[in-house]
């Protein structure tokens, strides 16, 4: 961004805007840390991945702040310093939480526990492999190794660090294989999980593992942010919803008091016609403007067909 030759006012703006990301990300990190601080931690595989995520993401955020300052960025733009930064934030911020969530909810969506020992082995392989791969890239970038070049002459002396990164990348691959093997094995022969193997707080753990397509036969009522930890005498269910049509409860926004029992439309092919019309219309409009009219006509017919009143017109309570 800063190396594109923006006017100075633009650069100042983008520096400020980038630094602001640091503030919001920082607040998030402190919230997560506070949540863990006030809880009782169990060092499961999922927790390992959460710690890995915070460690890696914070490191990536710190290099992001460095990149947000114009003088530093003008030197390090288009080098492996940026490649290191983006992998720390993308893999740390997206992939590690994904792995953590996968291990946490695996019992919910398969009905079986995932093996913790193999899980931790895969975590350490991924974590060590990740840092072995991407940490040297910071140094390579600061030494001037540019991005998007497939090879460099040996005299530049970047061979060792790149070899280290390659070793790290293979370690990541092994970690990935261990993870996949663990998933396949646990899915087949892991111990049966039951509805709530973690003694967790939130409502999905009240449903069976794996959940029925309708989730709950009777909607549970919720009186706190940790519904599974409220005393059983405070828990309740909603009655009086009709099971023979698609009813949903409409509630007030803050208090969640039910106000309406809304009936949603049943299955119908009409929206498909609308979607089909828009799809071919938009592809066609690449070639000729007149396809816009075809899209509009088919879309409109689909919407009117969907809207057209069906009997009975009065909704029975």
């Amino acid at each position: 961004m800063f190396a594109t030759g923006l006017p100075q006012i633009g650069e100042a703006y983008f520096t400020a805007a980038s630094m602001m990301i640091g503030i919001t990300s920082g607040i998030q990190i402190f919230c997560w840390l506070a949540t863990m601080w006030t809880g009782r931690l169990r060092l499961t595989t999922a927790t390992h991945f959460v710690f890995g995520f915070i460690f890696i993401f914070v490191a990536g955020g710190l290099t992001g702040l460095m990149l947000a300052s114009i003088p530093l960025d003008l030197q390090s733009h288009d080098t492996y310093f940026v490649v290191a930064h983006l992998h720390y934030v993308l893999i740390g911020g997206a992939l590690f939480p994904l792995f953590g969530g996968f291990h946490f909810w695996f019992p919910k969506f398969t009905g079986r526990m995932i093996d913790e020992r193999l899980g931790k082995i895969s975590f350490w392989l991924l974590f060590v492999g990740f840092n072995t791969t991407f940490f040297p890239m910071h140094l390579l970038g600061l030494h001037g190794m540019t991005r998007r070049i497939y090879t460099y002459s040996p005299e530049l002396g970047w061979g060792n660090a790149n070899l280290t990164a390659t070793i790290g990348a293979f370690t990541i691959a092994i970690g990935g294989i261990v993870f996949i093997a663990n998933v396949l094995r646990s899915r087949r022969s892991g111990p049966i999980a039951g509805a709530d193997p973690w003694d967790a707080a939130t409502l999905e753990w009240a449903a069976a593992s794996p959940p029925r397509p309708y989730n709950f036969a009777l909607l549970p009522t919720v009186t706190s942010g940790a519904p599974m930890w409220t005393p059983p005498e405070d828990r309740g269910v909603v009655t009086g919803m009709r099971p023979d049509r698609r009813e949903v409860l409409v509630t007030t926004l803050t208090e969640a008091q039910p106000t309406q029992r809304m009936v949603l439309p049943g299955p119908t092919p009409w929206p498909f016609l609308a979607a089909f019309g828009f799809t071919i219309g938009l592809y066609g409009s690449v070639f000729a403007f007149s396809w816009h009219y075809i899209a509009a006509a088919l879309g409109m017919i689909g919407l009117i067909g969907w809207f057209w009143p069906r009997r009975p017109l009065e909704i029975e309570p």
Partner: protein
Amino acid sequence: MTPVRTLDVTGLPMYEISSRAPLWWGQLLLCVIEGSVFSILIAMYFYLRLSVDVWPPTRVQLLHTGLPTLALIPLLLSAGGSYIASEAAKKNSRVGMLVGLGSNLGLALVFLSFRFVEWRTFNFTWASDIHGTLVWSILFLHTFDVAADLIMTLVLVVIVAIGRYGPKQRIGVHVDSVVWYFLVLIWLPLYVVLYWGPRLVGGA
């Protein structure tokens, strides 16, 4: 988990013809999306204005202000029709809905015919230059929205006239007015930009 408390919702209403209907909020958010697109178009208009000395470019006529200004009268009045229709929908008054929807539709058609007459006076197309592209983009998008809403209004007139409607369709009448208010209101800044913009920031 042994539930001891039950919350019985049997007595709750199935619908409410007001801003409590989820559909009403859906329409409002649709207006927010469409309003963002129009805002982006206005920003584009002034941003691209900065890159040339004379606006509109030479040999392009200034847009006439007479007809579009006159057209504001039926447009603003048509919002009154929407209001009558949505109040009638709440009271389930068939005559009220027909009068409201009908006058909304009729006045909007007057507005649209003014617009089509005006278009024939333009001496540029959407491919002429950047000014032409912007004017036509804004006019096309707004006209497209208006036409789509009028077709929906026509459908509502038909189902109310033949008596094939229940509470769900009356919610439709009610939220139809939300879209129409939006299309009338958003036209006011667009009108100022398109017709008075070149006179105020035209340069030359």
